[in-house]
């Protein structure tokens, strides 16, 4: 059983983080990216060509994380590989003891720096989840047996902040039907959207069937907030938040304050099972944010078994 699945099943508050993409530099380069927050997280996401930019593969990075003693969540996007390649990566990952998978559609190739590439999307994220679940039950999509069956803990992403808003919980429920046990929710700067999603998620029973983990983005500068609003598909940053950061005497400090407030708000919502933390070139910020919110280090959460972090 993966550490993440243990935490989810025990109802412990979960903290995951997104590893900055890796291009080179060996295992040291991987280690230095998560070292600053190592003690706080249950698992770290190895991303799969984020924003349609090529990087070291999620499988390779996930293996590196394991070798460095950190539990990976291997992301799989549908943009770059057909079903055969996805199955091969899942089987290969399981061979290395990687159990946590996060299945996503993926940004379009036009969001990246090689927009002339062919987009694949042979499967969608829900079909990918169902495929992975089948592999966990000991068979490829063709029906061919995998013996022993790989041990997998499946998750996905849902975006509370993108239209059609009223349909997002229904879509998330479909992901649960396909096999998802945890959902890392896309970064959502609009509190009322996240609130509405969580309210529906509790009402429709989604929150009791999957661990719902909102993402919090630690933007470093006000310009980064602007960039996200304008350039990252599916993310909107309210104008008053950008203005607040821009007007502050210390823009970087204000961005950190904003992240802390959003994190504190997200974890206060009924049905929230944890937080997924994303920092861009500010890895130390993740540990600072946890300390600030009174989220105990992982070892302490495990021994105390508390389901909620202590409030500040």
């Amino acid at each position, binding site marked *: 059983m993966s550490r993440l699945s243990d935490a989810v099943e025990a109802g412990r508050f979960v903290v995951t983080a997104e590893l900055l993409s890796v291009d080179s530099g060996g295992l040291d380069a991987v280690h230095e990216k998560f070292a600053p927050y190592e003690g706080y997280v249950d698992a770290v996401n190895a991303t799969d060509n984020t924003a349609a930019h090529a990087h070291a593969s999620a499988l390779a990075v996930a293996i590196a994380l394991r070798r460095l003693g950190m539990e990976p969540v291997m992301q799989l996007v549908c943009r770059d590989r057909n079903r055969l390649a996805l199955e091969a990566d899942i089987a290969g990952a399981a061979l290395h003891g990687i159990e946590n998978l996060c299945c996503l559609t993926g940004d379009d190739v036009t969001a990246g720096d090689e927009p002339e590439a062919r987009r694949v999307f042979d499967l*969608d994220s829900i*079909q990918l989840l169902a495929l992975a679940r089948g592999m966990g039950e000991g068979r490829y999509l063709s029906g061919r047996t995998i013996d022993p069956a790989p041990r997998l803990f499946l998750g996905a992403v849902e975006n509370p902040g*993108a239209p059609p808003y009223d349909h997002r919980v229904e879509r998330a429920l479909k992901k649960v039907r396909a096999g998802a046990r945890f959902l890392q929710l896309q970064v959502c700067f609009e509190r009322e959207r996240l609130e509405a999603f969580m309210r529906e998620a509790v009402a429709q029973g989604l929150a009791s069937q999957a661990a719902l983990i909102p993402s919090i983005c630690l933007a470093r500068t006000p310009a980064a907030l602007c960039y996200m609003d304008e350039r990252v598909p599916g993310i909107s940053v309210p104008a008053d938040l950008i203005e607040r950061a821009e007007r502050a005497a210390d823009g970087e400090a204000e961005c950190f304050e904003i992240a802390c407030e959003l994190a504190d708000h997200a974890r206060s919502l009924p049905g929230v099972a944890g937080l997924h933390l994303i920092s861009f070139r500010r890895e130390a910020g993740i540990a600072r944010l946890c300390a600030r919110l009174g989220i105990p280090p992982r070892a302490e959460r495990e021994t105390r078994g508390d389901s909620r972090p202590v409030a500040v």
Partner: protein
Amino acid sequence: MDPVVLVEAAVKKPVFGCRMCGQCVLHSTGMTCPMTCPKTLRNGPCGGVRPDGHCEVKPEMRCVWVKAVERAPRTPWAHELADLRPPVDNRLWGTSSWRNLLTGRDKRTPAGWRVPA
């Protein structure tokens, strides 16, 4: 060429932007074709839909799934919107979905696909 394919294409291309995938699910998605989604998503919208409901990839186009969610409740097949649609059988491109519906060919899924719709 199969005359049924020609007729189907002639009817469905101008009206629905049909791509002739040969496994039509149009009725279950509010009469909007999910294969016109740049990511060909058959199980719902991606996370990149713009705040105005338009497509991440083609800003001038309304998201297929925003339209589907809007329109499906007004069709007799509203309950089918939540169906979990299996992966596309890529051998069926360019064949007639009408014929595949009649023969049941469009319902055939890989042996390892055991997800109830």
